[in-house]
């Protein structure tokens, strides 16, 4: 029931957020030096032609009218047309979505799957050599810029060893390799970008999970469990794990933007044909409808991510249900 209320609350919260954010970016784009239309002009367009294009795009109207117009379209899911390709923005998004989903979902699964055991072992054995090893590795992980890690991955595994391709999504020669062949080839391409994201994002979460587990180790209820004769493993896996998962869920929700930005640069670096690469390309070419659409989608994704985190929290913790 409370979960329902959380969802509704987040959804209502989404309205001012989207309106506010799009207004800010809209004004910024239009106030910044260089008219949005100027990027599409050929240098030898006549002034008259330019005015015509502006009129067709509605750029001659007052900003408020333009914004209202644009917002009305946005709400209906019509993000306009790319200045660069002329294709509808939504179509470009849908083309890019599978690649991004593949990368982000698989990295999220791996991150959680590696963080939980690593942090838990570390927290349950503070001061052991494995704990110190994990602490040092995560410290290194926190300090490495994602894009540089990616570059090093390419340098070692692609340039020197030649094990994995340095860029792309699918080998074009393999277009008729059948299901299994395509799958393996995609996996082959996925490994480097995937592990770049995973290694870069793992460190922070593992440290949080470690300190959460370590703090719980001396909680009265854990000592009470011991006093009732429960085994250490049972205490760790049943009683501590669920409690330690709580801060982890919050952190995961808060880290979503960082995860997204990491994925951005990684997609760019590995020429992974996802939304992030599209985003950076549109920023460079000042493709405004695309930029606005991406900001819009990014904000919605963030809200949904936080909503999921809220729900997961409520599901685990009976006190806020």
């Amino acid at each position, binding site marked *: 029931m409370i979960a329902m209320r959380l969802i509704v609350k987040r959804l209502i*919260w989404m309205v*001012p*957020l989207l309106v*506010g*954010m799009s207004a800010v*970016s809209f004004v*910024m*784009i239009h106030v*910044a*030096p260089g008219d949005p239309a100027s990027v599409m002009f050929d240098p030898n367009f006549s002034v008259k032609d330019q005015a015509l294009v502006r009129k067709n795009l509605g750029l001659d109207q007052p900003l408020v009218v333009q914004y209202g117009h644009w917002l009305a379209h946005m709400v209906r899911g019509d993000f306009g047309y790319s200045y660069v390709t002329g294709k509808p923005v939504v179509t470009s998004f849908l083309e890019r979505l599978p690649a991004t989903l593949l990368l982000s979902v698989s990295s999220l699964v791996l991150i959680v799957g590696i963080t939980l055991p690593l942090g838990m072992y570390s927290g349950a054995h503070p001061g052991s050599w494995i704990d110190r090893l994990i602490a040092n590795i995560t*410290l*290194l992980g*926190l*300090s*490495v*810029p*994602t*894009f*540089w890690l990616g*570059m*090093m991955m*390419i*340098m070692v595994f692609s*340039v020197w060893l030649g094990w994995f391709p340095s860029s792309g999504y699918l080998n074009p020669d393999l277009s008729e390799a059948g299901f299994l062949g395509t799958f393996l080839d995609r996996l082959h391409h996925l490994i480097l970008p995937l592990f770049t994201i995973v290694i870069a994002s793992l460190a922070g979460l593992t440290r949080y999970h470690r300190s959460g587990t370590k703090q719980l180790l001396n909680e009265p209820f854990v000592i009470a469990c011991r006093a009732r004769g429960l085994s250490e493993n049972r205490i760790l896996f049943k009683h501590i794990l669920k409690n330690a998962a709580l801060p982890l869920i919050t952190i995961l929700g*808060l880290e979503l*933007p*960082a995860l*997204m*930005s990491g994925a*951005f*640069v990684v997609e*760019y670096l590995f020429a992974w044909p996802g939304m992030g690469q599209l*985003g*950076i390309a549109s*920023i*460079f070419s*000042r493709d405004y409808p695309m*930029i606005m659409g*991406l*900001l819009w989608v*990014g*904000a919605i*994704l*963030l*809200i949904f991510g*936080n909503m999921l985190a809220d729900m997961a929290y409520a599901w685990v913790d009976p006190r806020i249900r």
Partner: protein
Amino acid sequence: MKLPLSAWVSIGLLGLFFVGSLAIQWPLKMDAQSFDPNLVGGPLSPSFAHIFGTDDAGRDTLLRCLSGAKLSLSIGLVSVMMATSIGLAVGLVSGFSPRWIDAGVMRFVDFVMALPTFFLILSIQVLLKPSIWNVVVVIGATSWMGTARMVRASVLSLKERPFILVARARGLSSRRLLFKHILPHTLSPVLVSAMLGMGHAILTESVLSFLGLGVQPPCPSWGNMLEDSLSYMYQAPWMAIAPGMCIVCVVMATAVIGDAWQERIQQI
């Protein structure tokens, strides 16, 4: 002050970068932007004359790394100072104001936190001409929310602590209460998060410069050096390794110092 060895080593490392970056500019009068015309034409591998090798234009990598250190450290420092002061101000105001102001301010903080910050930074950098000051302001303006939340939470909990209630009962004014009794208690954790924030700011700056949206060439920064190195990954790996190691060392140093500090706070 009692800090673990690793923290002292980190402090020393940061100092080394700082002194090194000043030294090449002042006593040694070396210019990281000029290059030896005899060497133009290709990156030279590491040698005695150029310990970390040279880049494609024949410029010494070590020299440019040190010159980049000054930029990275100052961008990190200034943007963190900006973020910390905004965060402190917002947090204190929010924690000390009547509930409706507090609620309004916190909604605003939520709003900023819900923005896809990185993409927004990129867009802003493209719209305004990329410059060092823009980088500083943009990073500072998008990374104060954590501090604000932390300060507010600690003010709220301190307000209810007995020693504050007692001070209030003694008739101390709000301002005195704020600056003499509450601020000092919130300062230590704020400084710790500023230390970690500096590492974060340096990382963000490097990404921006790497994408060509931060510090502009020929002015060397670790990020734009890495961008240059992209096309020479096969011939000149040192061009990619040296600046990257600089980033890792400096960010790691801030993290180690922050951790050590945190530990000290918890012990007291």
